[in-house]
């Protein structure tokens, strides 16, 4: 297993290299990153010249790529276009944990609820619960994230206005004086609860459907029938024998989802004003800072690669039939 993990990580290096080439040449193909600055009378020719020198913009693209990779590896992705004194990696280091907190919370809760719904739907196939869960899943798939976010904000604001009870906060990461230790984390949870609910809905729908389909396949298999025939309680048959095998596709999907959400929760984070990867990327896009955009894309690509490896490892752990050389 260790050999397998090391091999997968080594395979990731050429993948990351290919990703970096694709990212660099795609982003630079958009055009001169200084095009708008050159037209803006507030920026002197000296500033433009300084940036061109600093970012080697007058060199051939392949040379620029080499400098960019060097900056990424040895200089924390270098500095943004207009702020030579700061490092892009320092900003990424700030925003990544915020996104991780949100995604972790949303995905873990979505997994627990989604798996439970899927298992029960499969066991009680064609019951009222099954139909209700199916309807809920389709609603979850169809509901726009931004609309749901606004509805939840309005709901909890109205609860506060009517009963003067603040259950959850509608924006921000923390209160002004969140305290420390457990108080800090309770405050953080209260701020992340609504964004997590927003993200969870689609994931619950997805995991519920996957789990249901997978469970239905497994509970009708021969070994499960054998376990029942042996006289095991239905609960043991379901949870000990069927569930573990049925989890395989769900675990795979959730690991990949997790990686994708690191860079994919843009709308949710922007609406709820969470200082995460989403708003950081949007700001860079609006400011047309190609170097921040490229760094962000590399981090997102790395996250997806890492979580793919985790998915494969978990796959092998859950299903002992799978052996990695």
């Amino acid at each position, binding site marked *: 297993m260790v050999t397998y993990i090391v091999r997968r990580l080594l395979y990731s290096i050429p993948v990351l290299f290919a990703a970096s080439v694709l990212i660099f040449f795609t982003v630079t193909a958009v055009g001169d990153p200084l*095009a*708008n600055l050159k*037209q*803006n*009378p*507030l*920026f*002197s020719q*000296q*500033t433009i010249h300084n940036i061109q020198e600093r970012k080697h913009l007058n060199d051939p693209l392949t040379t620029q790529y080499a400098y960019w990779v060097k900056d990424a590896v040895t200089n924390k992705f270098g500095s943004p276009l*207009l*702020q*030579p*004194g*700061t490092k892009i990696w320092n*900003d990424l280091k*700030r*925003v990544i944990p*915020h996104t991780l907190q949100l995604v972790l919370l949303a995905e873990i809760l979505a997994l627990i609820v989604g798996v439970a719904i899927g298992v029960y739907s499969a066991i009680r196939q064609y019951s009222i619960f099954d139909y209700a869960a199916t309807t809920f899943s389709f609603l979850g798939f169809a509901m726009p994230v931004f609309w749901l976010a*606004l509805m939840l*904000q*309005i709901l*909890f*604001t109205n609860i*506060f*206005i009517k009963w*003067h*009870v*603040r*259950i*959850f*906060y*509608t*924006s*921000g*990461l*923390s*209160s*002004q*004086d969140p305290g420390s230790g457990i*108080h800090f984390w*309770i*405050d953080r*949870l*209260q701020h992340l*609860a609504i964004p997590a609910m927003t993200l969870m809905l689609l994931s619950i729908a997805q995991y519920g459907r996957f789990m249901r389909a997978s469970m239905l396949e497994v509970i009708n298999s021969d070994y499960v029938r054998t376990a029942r025939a042996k006289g095991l309680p239905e609960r043991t048959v379901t949870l000990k024998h069927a569930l573990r095998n049925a989890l395989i596709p769900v675990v795979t999907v959730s690991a990949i989802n997790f990686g994708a959400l690191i860079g994919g929760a843009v709308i949710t984070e*922007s*609406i*709820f*004003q969470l*200082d995460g990867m989403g*708003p*950081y990327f949007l700001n860079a896009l609006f*400011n*047309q800072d190609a170097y921040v955009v490229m760094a962000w894309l590399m981090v997102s690509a790395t996250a997806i690669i890492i979580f793919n490896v985790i998915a494969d490892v978990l796959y092998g752990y859950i299903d002992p039939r799978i052996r990695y050389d």
Partner: protein
Amino acid sequence: MHRSHFRLMLGVLVAVTSLIVAGAAGGASKKSTAGSVTFGAEQEPPCLNGFTSGCNNTWTSWTAGIALANVMIVKPDFTIKPYMGNAKVVSRKPFTVLVTLNKKAKWSDGKQVSADDLIFTWQTIVNPKFDLASRSGFDSIARAVKVNGKAVKFIYKTPYAPYKVQFATYSIIPKHALEGLDFNTVWDNNYNNKAGQTMASGPYKLQSYTKGQSLVMVRNSTFWGKRPTLDKITFVFRTNTDTEIQAIRGGEVDAIYPQPQLQLAQLRGQSGLKVQTNAGTTIEHIDINTGAGNSSPLLGQAWFRQAIAYSLDRTGMIKQLFSTLNPGLPTLNNLSYVTAQKGIYVPHFAKYQINNKAKRLAKVAAIMKAHNCTKGGDGIYSCGGEKASVRLGTTSGNKLRELAVEIMQAQAKDAGIEFKADSQPSRLFFPRIAANKYDLALFAWVGTGDPAGQVDIYGCAGDKTADNPQGYGGSNWKGYCKPGVTNALKASDAALNPKARIKLVNKADALMANDVPTIPLYQKPTYFVFKTSLKGLVDNPTLQGPTWNTEGWKAG
């Protein structure tokens, strides 16, 4: 129910109840304390050194910028008054301004705000090594003479009428904290001196800045003016309008100052909230490209531009856009002054506002007929084979502007003129305007209430070059050049007598009202929403913004 199911449900119930109880308790204790205000800022400063091009943002000066005081201040009625000092003309030849500082003015590290700081501020602003957003006024100073520890005489190269605006726009920076440092990179995330102490001359000083989240200002105990009542003002960044609205409704913030959007109207009826709205200094207007680059030669004719102006019911459009947000928002009828400037503002463009639709259409018809234009089967005029069809563009994504374009298209069509929508995102729109590749452009200038620099926008007094043979002003993207207008505006920048200056500016405005290179529409309203428990908050629609008088704020 199975016992394990029961235990699971009980556990979930306990967890949720704990969160609610913690929230309720936390919510109660997290209300604004008697001495603090939480302000929802609609934009986060890109960095804190508001002088530099990369950091130049209104919210920089409205948040952290309250730590750095100016010599003068623009009041809500657009008058300019002394603040941390005073600036007055002591000689006309050569033009000399004496700037004096309040004797009590000192920095938060205990050192006096001094004449050396005034001179250092000037030297920093004019230093070509530093990439600054603007040097207006300071680049007109030839030399500075220190009179005493608290006074400097600035001798200008030529008379500079808007000197008060200059000293109301730029903060004074501390020499002892910044001398020798690279101003392009300093004060990105703090206002520290070389010993790491935060510097302030204003009522509040910067305590902390958490990027992406908040900026905390605390009372500056060395402030020279009235002792600020509040202990703390926290600016939290809420860049989404809907989120801002829910935050103020739910009491998560105590005040917001959003861009006017239609959904803000719901806050007017909310109990516990007060709304102040004024006509601001963001001048929404339509520029007309009278020269090369337009798609219709008709735009080069003053009569056609007048016909366009007559075809628009600007008052009706403003009512449609702002009846819920700011019911009393007036139509703007002057290109240089704003409606609040009583005795100065002259509505030269009011003649184009005909409220009665039939009369309005008849007026346009009369102009078109007088120039041998005939209506086609589609109801659009044709003049000498040239169809009265032009492009009207604005910044796409801005709902109010897009609505305005739709309204004006309908109005113009009724009058027989076609406006073809031609909007683009701002990053594409503005370069196109600057390259003169447009017909009609709806956008805004952000003014100060002072007409300084208008010759740049409407004149042709610049250097004549191969690329710019007419010498159009740096922001004159209309191809408009009238010697009468240029001379009047140029003279106004040097006119030291305020009455003479107003007369010159209005003379230029009257000429432009006949030529119509631009059609003024309205001043974008400001929208200040805050809890009724807060006292002392007064909207300032000038560039000073809502935080102009934080020393007078009180939390109930």
